[in-house]
């Protein structure tokens, strides 16, 4: 199996390279289940949290562990935006995502009881991997609808060449084959 080395601080992982579209190969990063990598990324990313940050905002699924670890280190709370409507949600914020990578529309959901925790807050958006930025933009819209002010966009990895207002610890290429 073809692999690609990714590194955060002193931690290196040789991750599988998968073909997502014909001729397009990407190193596949999965931080969930990798406690060492998540802790290393969290320790590095909390240094990029602006001091005025009140709350971390992330979305399911895999960035949750990163947000949790950053919250445990920094003492700042975090809120998780869901990718599915949950039965208990009341008056949720609903935001469509234009996903360029999959070409399908996704929807983000945030229960109003969670949205209340963001009102008037300075929030930092937390991601494991940002590629096209479509999901990041959608999460930013959720934050604004909840009345929050986005003060930082932090990711463990940035994949590809998109120019985004983002602080990432590590760059991952998109590999093309002829």
């Amino acid at each position, binding site marked *: 199996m073809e692999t690609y080395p990714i590194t955060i601080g002193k931690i290196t992982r040789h991750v599988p390279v998968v073909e997502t579209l014909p001729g397009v190969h990407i190193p596949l990063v999965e931080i969930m289940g990798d406690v060492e990598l998540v802790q290393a990324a969290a320790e590095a990313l909390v240094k990029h949290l602006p001091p005025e940050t009140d709350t971390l905002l992330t979305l399911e699924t895999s960035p949750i562990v990163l947000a949790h670890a950053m919250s445990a280190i920094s003492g700042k709370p975090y*809120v998780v935006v869901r990718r599915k409507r949950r039965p*208990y949600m009341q008056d949720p914020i609903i935001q469509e995502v234009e996903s360029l990578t999959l070409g399908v529309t996704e929807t983000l959901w945030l229960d109003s009881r969670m949205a209340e925790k963001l009102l008037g807050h300075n929030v930092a958006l937390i991601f494991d991997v940002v590629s096209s930025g479509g999901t990041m933009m959608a999460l930013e819209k959720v934050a604004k609808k909840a009345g929050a002010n986005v003060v930082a966009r932090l990711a463990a990895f940035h994949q590809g060449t998109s120019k985004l207002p983002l602080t990432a610890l590590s760059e991952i290429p998109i590999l093309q084959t002829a």
Partner: protein
Amino acid sequence: MKIAGVHRELPVVQVGPEVSVALFNMLGDTEVVEEAAAALAQRMPADIDTLVTPEVKAVPLAHALSRLTGRPYVVARKTEKPYMINPVSRTVISITTGKPQLLVLDGTDVPLLKGKKVAIVDDVVSTGSTLKGLSDLITDVGGVVGAVMAVFTEGSPRDDVIALGHLPLFKPD
């Protein structure tokens, strides 16, 4: 409700025509997750090799428990991902959604489970349907379920789960 020494008020939410539940959602509650993980780590049987958790809400708990105990954890996903290699799956009926729910293990995680003593880690064990599905999955890939650990049991008390507390079911008004 006290959770490992931390107090939280849980909203009671109607989830069906005849039943309401105290909604325990520890996603985003770092203090509860860390305290619960510390309490569960002390009660985890010493011979456990690997932790298995269903996504989504219990994942931070499994992460924290893994960090504290040094045991790896595996996440059972709710959808099969295109990148999975030889995935293994089961369908269960979830109490919170009332719908069939798929549980999928990535084949690449099987070496962490095969021939290993496994602890299932969840936030709330209620009807046990997720638990049954996970147990079957673990057995399917050659693992042995050595413990079930949860923050809460719900509904009927059960002694097959290492839990920090119990949540009753409520009748809606």
